[in-house]
């Protein structure tokens, strides 16, 4: 379990990194925290000929809420930085993001793994991807052709596939508005494992009545998905249980060694309802 040979390039700035990527082409891969990539390289499931290390780009390690209420997180911010962020840094209404960090692997993974790395990896069960889909995050990507913003619904394409071009790097993720009544929960056999199913909801509520809500699921498709059918139940004033039921009915999850489709639907019912309740109680 030793990686195949590669050439190592340390980027000095974002422009240098994207220029290198453009020059090296498909054989190059960006490494940030490396918590997924290095494991795949050790198994030789990934074998880039070139690694472009952007880990030193401190300008991509930041988080804060702007005057417009947007939460902007630099791509190189670690999960652990988010987990331990002060209320001032993370702002009111983003507790869902801080709390979700506890579901990501374990502490020694969170200290190295980065928000941007997780998003760019695009795992269907990743907490960050689910949060992005739930909260309509925007992805700021920079490449030789300049900078662009990609909405979450256009960012994830399928299993481990995103809208990023090979010569682009993710520099920032923007969560456009606070979500004071949102929650993410999930289930795996063991603590810290990839979720079999994860669920996240964001309620528009005054704390008593739910006006509307967003529901998103991970582990049920090639990428995290919103579930309009479940959201319709919330908008119509339906119960959390009915919302969860609608979510389970609406999706067609895969069956694999971690759980059959039938079992995943059961988990959806449990987790969506649980997330609704947690979101409501915030």
């Amino acid at each position: 379990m030793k990686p195949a040979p590669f050439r190592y390039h340390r980027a000095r700035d974002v422009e240098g990194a994207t220029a290198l990527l453009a020059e090296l082409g498909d054989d190059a891969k960006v490494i940030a925290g490396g918590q997924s990539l290095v494991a795949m390289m050790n198994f030789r499931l990934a074998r880039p000929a070139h690694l472009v290390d952007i880990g030193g780009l401190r300008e991509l390690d930041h988080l804060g809420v702007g005057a417009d209420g947007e939460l902007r997180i630099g791509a190189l911010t670690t999960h652990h930085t988010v987990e331990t962020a002060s209320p001032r840094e993370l702002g009111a209404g983003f507790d869902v993001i801080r709390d979700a960090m506890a579901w990501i692997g374990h502490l020694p993974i969170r200290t190295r793994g980065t928000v941007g790395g997780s998003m760019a990896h695009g795992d269907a069960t990743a907490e960050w991807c689910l949060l992005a889909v739930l909260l309509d995050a925007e992805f700021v990507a920079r490449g030789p052709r300049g900078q662009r913003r990609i909405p979450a619904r256009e960012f994830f394409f399928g299993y481990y596939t995103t809208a990023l071009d090979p010569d682009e790097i993710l520099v920032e993720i923007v969560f456009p508005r606070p979500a004071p009544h949102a929650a993410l929960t999930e289930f795996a056999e063991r603590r810290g494992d990839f979720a079999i199913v994860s669920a996240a909801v964001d309620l528009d509520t005054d704390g008593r009545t739910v006006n509307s809500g967003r529901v998103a699921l991970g582990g049920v498709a090639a990428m995290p998905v919103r579930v309009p059918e479940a959201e319709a139940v919330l908008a119509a004033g339906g119960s959390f249980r009915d919302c969860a039921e609608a979510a389970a009915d609406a999706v067609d999850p895969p069956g694999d060694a971690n759980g059959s489709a039938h079992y995943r639907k059961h988990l959806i019912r449990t987790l969506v309802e649980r997330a609704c309740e947690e979101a409501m109680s915030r």
Partner: protein
Amino acid sequence: MTSVTENQLVGRSVARREDPRLLTGHGRFVDDIELPGMLHAQFVRSTVAHGLITAVDLTAVRRVPGVVAAFTAADLGLGDITARLDRPPAEFVPTAMPVLARDRVRYVGEPIAVVVARDPYAAEDGLEAARVTYESLPPVTCEEQALAPGAALVHEEAVRNTLVDVSLFATEGIDGIFENAPCVVRVEARTGRQNALPLETRGAVAQWDAREEQLVVHTCTQIPHQVRTVASRCLGLDERAVRVIVPDMGGGFGLKCVVGREEIAAAAAALRLRRPVKWIEDRKDALSASFLAREQHYTARAAFDADGRILGLDADVVCDMGAYSCYPFTAGIEPLMAAGEMPGVYKVPAYRVRGRAITTNKAPTAPYRGVSRPQYVMVVERLMERAARELDMDPLEIRRRNLITDFPYTGVNHITYDPGSYLESLDLCEQALKEAGWYDRQAAARAEGRHIGIGYSCFSERTGYGSAAFAARKMQVVPGFDLSEVRMDTGGAVTVTTGTMSHGQSHETTMAQIVADALGVDLAKVKLHQGDTDRITYGWGTFASRSITVGGSAVRRAAVKLGDKLRAIAAAEWGVPPEETELARGRVRRRDEPGIELTYEHLADIAYLKSHLLPEDIEPGLTATAAFDVTTDGTFSNATHGAVVELHEGTGQVEILAYVCVEDCGVAIHPQVVEGQCRGGIAQGIAGALFEQITYDAQGEPSATSFMDYKVPTAHEIPDVTIHHLETPCAFTETGAKGAGEGGTIGAPAAVLNAVNDALRATGVELDTTPITPETVHRALTSPALEQTR
């Protein structure tokens, strides 16, 4: 008593001798060994489960930068490792395990060629350049396929893919007993294929020492002398010309208690290249291509009278041993243990059993902590629970009626059980759970519609198998005894050797406690040496919870002998008979006048440096050796485990709320170490009951090559364990101790499974197959029967 120790060390949890080096990063494990000019080996492994090898082309491998050499079995002249039982062909078929596969492969991951390179990275580059072509054969991946008429054969010589088929017991009239019994209950149980999973993978560093004319193999093994035997035979060397050294070892649990193929091949490469060769197994190979265990299938029934007394036990056990018989135990290890010992702690008057080992295209099987006992205890305890339900009895009452209480007890399986606390441990376990309020909490939870269950398991564990017990299995290689040498130097410090091989069990501490007590010296004066075939005359290693019972007894005997010699020297000095002397606090003193004494230093000075003072009948030097064997059926540790679980409807998750273990291993040399063995063993038992399994698909591809797929439980899943001790000293070990290595693992699956089934009571579903996954529990909790009760 020949020794007086006011501060007896046995029975006290003294600071472990092993700890300082392990805590500071100064332990020395195999992969820590670095030799000048050392090369690194990795293995080209089969990518198909079953096939004929039509070609192995290593040409491109040898051209990979950094690769120094690549060898097939033919290149190195490597033959087979064959383990045998002295049983007739109808009962046992020996099969050869080639050190490197030559013409045929029998599982995914089987080693075919060894690649040796300047570093482990280049070695792995080399593997990718190997070209092996196969003519594939139909893979045999499960019991049904293996036993089906006309099935493909894994070994041509093993008809019906059966390596072992023994019907050890069949009480006359047992069919009639079952026909007439008022209550007959059945269990069909399957247990998942597991990996013992020491955190340190297997590995070896082999080097030819030209000066000593010796091949030196550093390897992490529980059985150094047996590795030496196989290495010398496979490599055509005298046993003297092989020295096996075991450095610190990161766990074994049985997986390292068999001789592997890779360490032999690495040694052959080192001999050929005349350079040190290191092989460190990576986790992917360790999970899927080393040795697995535990995959068994039981079809069992038990007959009871109306009062819940067991009348008969009838079982058919099929153990899926994978592709090969392991050395030295053979594929008989699991079926012979299960068939021989299944009646366990109960008074079973009639018993019939058939035990089989079948061969399939899966990684082969080694012993794993508990060997078959976790499974058959689970089956017997499920039978007890089922009978209790059938007869509407309390599940503990039915056990009380059947537990052996009069010792020694000779069972229907012809085994004599020495005294234990079978009933007492059950009583105490129940009391502990009651006093902690778990029965009340269970009732309250049930009223709320929650699913809390309480389950028990009662079992004993034969420890201290002597040569008689192993001979009864008809092993061609019969383990049993152990040897020790105790030596005192000129300054009075003591060196002890043992043929056992600690790898977490703390023998450097516990054996030293035994010796320090026997000689009346400080613990710090005693140093244990193990795991070096040049330093230790012979030994059978550490497995089957034998080390303290057998090894500890040998160590004590040798220490007492050395004490006798010290007394003899002193007695000669004083001109009194040795009987009139005794040992105390590093001195020999006169019994009649305790004020008259000679220090060990003084006596050692005479023994070595002034030997002219010794009487004629006393040889110079201070060395004593002793052997110990168990000539009876062995000694039985026992325990009762109690588990409380809650099943969560929303996810199917099994949460263990409480766990109590009441154990009796006789005299506990070091109570904290005993508790450590219990807790660690229980964690492994829970792992088997709820989490871990390697399955194979129809092509024979293993499901788990990483820790993502092989779900070793963490601190989040494993509960705290409350431990209570009972002490029924063993009459025939030198210390009164019984073994404690495996009990935790043996008792846990049954206790957890019974608790889960207790929680499922309202559903009408019973689960007898492990691991029990959340999805299984979810299915049970959504069964129609449960809905009806609402």
